[in-house]
C-alpha cells in the first residue's frame, strides 16, 4: 500500500514539474530585425514670390528680406531638394526657371516691374487659390508675400476684406477636403522697408522707412512639410524670437502610453497603455499622480504650442496637469503629460489638444485701418490666418484626443 502511495506521489511531482515553463524567457527568442526604411523621393518645391508694387520696398539689396529669402531658398536647395521652381506671382504666374543665383539678382524693384503682370492690386485670396491648385502630395508651395490686402480706389474695404476672408476659408476648406493630410505653416518675419507704401485706398505714401512684416507660407503634405522643417530649420537662418509662426493641420491619432514609475498605481494587464487600476495616493506628496507619454512628432505644431497648457482641455477638472518634453526614450515619445489630483477620481479621462486657439500675435500684429505703414503690423493679416484656421478646424476642434481609463 505504501509503495503505491509513493509511486503516485512520484508521478504527481513529475506532473507538477512539467507545468512550469522553466527558464524560457521571451528575450531568448528575440531576433534582431533591421528595419527596411524605403527611401522616399523628395517633393518638388514651387516658390511664388509676390511682385506687386507694394513689395518693392522690401527688395532693395541688402535688406533683411532679400538676405533671408536667398538664404532660405539656398538652404532648401542644399539640405532638402534641388527640384525648386521659381515664380513671380501677381495677377498671373510668371515662371523664373530654377536658377537660384539668378533669382537672387532679380530680387529688386526694377526686375519686379519688368516681369509685368498686374502689380496694382493684391488679391491674396486669388493668389492663394492659384497656388493651392498647383499644390498636391508631391509638391510643396512657398508663397512669399507682404500679406497686405489692397482693395483699391473707391472700394468698400470692409466688404473687400470680408470677401477675401470667406474666399480664403472656402479654398482652404476645399483643399483640405481633397488633401486631408495637408498642412499650412505661415512664418512672419520683419524687414526694413524702404520705398512707396500703398494704403488701402491704393494711395502711395512715398519714402516710407519702417520695419514691416512679410510672410512665407508653406503649403503641402504634412509629412513633406515636417520633413522640410526638420531638414531646413528656420531657427538656423533666423534668430529665435525674430519670427512668428502659425500652423494649420488636420486631426490624427497619436501614439501614447501611461508611463511607468510615475505614481502609485498598477497598469491593467490587458490595456496597459491606457488603463490604470488600483490608483492610490503617493505617500510622499499625499497626491494621486500618473503621467502619460505622447508622441506628437507627426505634427508641424511648434513646441511652444505643444508645451502651452492652455492649448489642452480636460473632461475632468479634478485632475490638474502639466506638460513637459519627454525624457529620452527609444519609443519616439516627444512629450509627457503629468496628472495629479487630491484623491482618486475613477472614470474616463479625456485630454484634447485644441485647435481653437489662434496665436496672439495674429491679433497683435493686425492693422485694421490700412491707412499707413505701422511698424510690425499688416493690414488684414488676421482675416487671412483666421480663414485658414477655420477651414482646418471646421470639422474637428482638436488635433487629437488622448483617453485614459482609471478603474
Amino acid at each position: 500500500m505504501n509503495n503505491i502511495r509513493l509511486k503516485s506521489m512520484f508521478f504527481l511531482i513529475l506532473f507538477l514539474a512539467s507545468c512550469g515553463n522553466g527558464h524560457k524567457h521571451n528575450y531568448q527568442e528575440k531576433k534582431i530585425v533591421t528595419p527596411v526604411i524605403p527611401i522616399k523621393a523628395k517633393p518638388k518645391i514651387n516658390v511664388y514670390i509676390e511682385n506687386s508694387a507694394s513689395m518693392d520696398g522690401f527688395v532693395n539689396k541688402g535688406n533683411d528680406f532679400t538676405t533671408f529669402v536667398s538664404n532660405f531658398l539656398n538652404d532648401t536647395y542644399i539640405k532638402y531638394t534641388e527640384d525648386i521652381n521659381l515664380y513671380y506671382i501677381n495677377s498671373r504666374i510668371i515662371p523664373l526657371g530654377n536658377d537660384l543665383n539668378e533669382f537672387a539678382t532679380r530680387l529688386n524693384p526694377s526686375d519686379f516691374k519688368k516681369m509685368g503682370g498686374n502689380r496694382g492690386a493684391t488679391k491674396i485670396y486669388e493668389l492663394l487659390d492659384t497656388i493651392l491648385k498647383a499644390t498636391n502630395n508631391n509638391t510643396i508651395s512657398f508663397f512669399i508675400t507682404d500679406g497686405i490686402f489692397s482693395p483699391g480706389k473707391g472700394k468698400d474695404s470692409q466688404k473687400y476684406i470680408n470677401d477675401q476672408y470667406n474666399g480664403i476659408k472656402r479654398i482652404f476648406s476645399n483643399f483640405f477636403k481633397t488633401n486631408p493630410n495637408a498642412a499650412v505653416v505661415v512664418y512672419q518675419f520683419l524687414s526694413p522697408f524702404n520705398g512707396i507704401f500703398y494704403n488701402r485706398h491704393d494711395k502711395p505714401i512715398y519714402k516710407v522707412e519702417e520695419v514691416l512684416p512679410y510672410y512665407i507660407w508653406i503649403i503641402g503634405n504634412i509629412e513633406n512639410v515636417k520633413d522640410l522643417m526638420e531638414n531646413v530649420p528656420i531657427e538656423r537662418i533666423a534668430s529665435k524670437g525674430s519670427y512668428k509662426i502659425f500652423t494649420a493641420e488636420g486631426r490624427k491619432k497619436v501614439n501614447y502610453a501611461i508611463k511607468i514609475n510615475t505614481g502609485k498605481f498598477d497598469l491593467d494587464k490587458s490595456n496597459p497603455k491606457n488603463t490604470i487600476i488600483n490608483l492610490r495616493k503617493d505617500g510622499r506628496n499625499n497626491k494621486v499622480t500618473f503621467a502619460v507619454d505622447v508622441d506628437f512628432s507627426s505634427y508641424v505644431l511648434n513646441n511652444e504650442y505643444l508645451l502651452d497648457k492652455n492649448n489642452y482641455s480636460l473632461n475632468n477638472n479634478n485632475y490638474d496637469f502639466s506638460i513637459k518634453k519627454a525624457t529620452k526614450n527609444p519609443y519616439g515619445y516627444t512629450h509627457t503629460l503629468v496628472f495629479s489630483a487630491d484623491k482618486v477620481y475613477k472614470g474616463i479621462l479625456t485630454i484634447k489638444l485644441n485647435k481653437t486657439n489662434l496665436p496672439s500675435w495674429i491679433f497683435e500684429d493686425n492693422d485694421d485701418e490700412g491707412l499707413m505703414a505701422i511698424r510690425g503690423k499688416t493690414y488684414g493679416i488676421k482675416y487671412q490666418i483666421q480663414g485658414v484656421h477655420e477651414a482646418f478646424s471646421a470639422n474637428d476642434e482638436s488635433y487629437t484626443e488622448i483617453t485614459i481609463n482609471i478603474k
Partner: protein
Amino acid sequence: MEELLGNIYCWFESLFGQNLAEYLWGYNCETQGYSNVNLFNSIGLLTIVVVLIFVLAYYYLPLYLFNHPRSNRWWNWLIILGLAGFVNFLIASIWTVNDFLNGNIGDCLIYTRDEGGNIVVQHIYETNCFLFGLSNIFISTLFFILFSILFKRWSRNCKYSPF
C-alpha cells in the same frame, strides 16, 4: 487564474519594489505592454514544485531526517521548511539577479532618465532581487504549511508533525 500567483507575490511588493514586480508580470518596455512571460507564474510554479518535493520527502521518504520515527518532531519539520525556503530563496534570487545582470530587465523599469537621457533615479538594484528571494521564502513557507496539512495524514512516521 493566470494572475493568481502574481497577486500572491504582490502581497510582498513593498519589499522588492513595484518595478521588479512589473518585470516579473512580463512588462516589456519596447511594446509597453505585458508581452513577456509572466515570471511570477514561472518562479511560483517552480517554488511550489520544490516545496512539494520537500513536503512529500518529509512525510513519505523513508530516510533519516525525513519519514523516520525520530523525525516526528516539530523542529524537524521546521528544518525541512527552512531548507525548502532556502532553496526557493536561491531560485528566486539567482533567477532575477541573472536577468538584472544580463540586461533582460527593460531600461524603463530600471531607470528614470531626464530629457538628455541621464539617469535621474535607479529603481532596481541587486538588493531588490534578493528581497524578492526573501519574499519567495514567505511564499515557500505558505505552501509548505498548506501541503503539510494536506499530506501529513498518510505519513507512517510523521503524521503528528508539526501538530
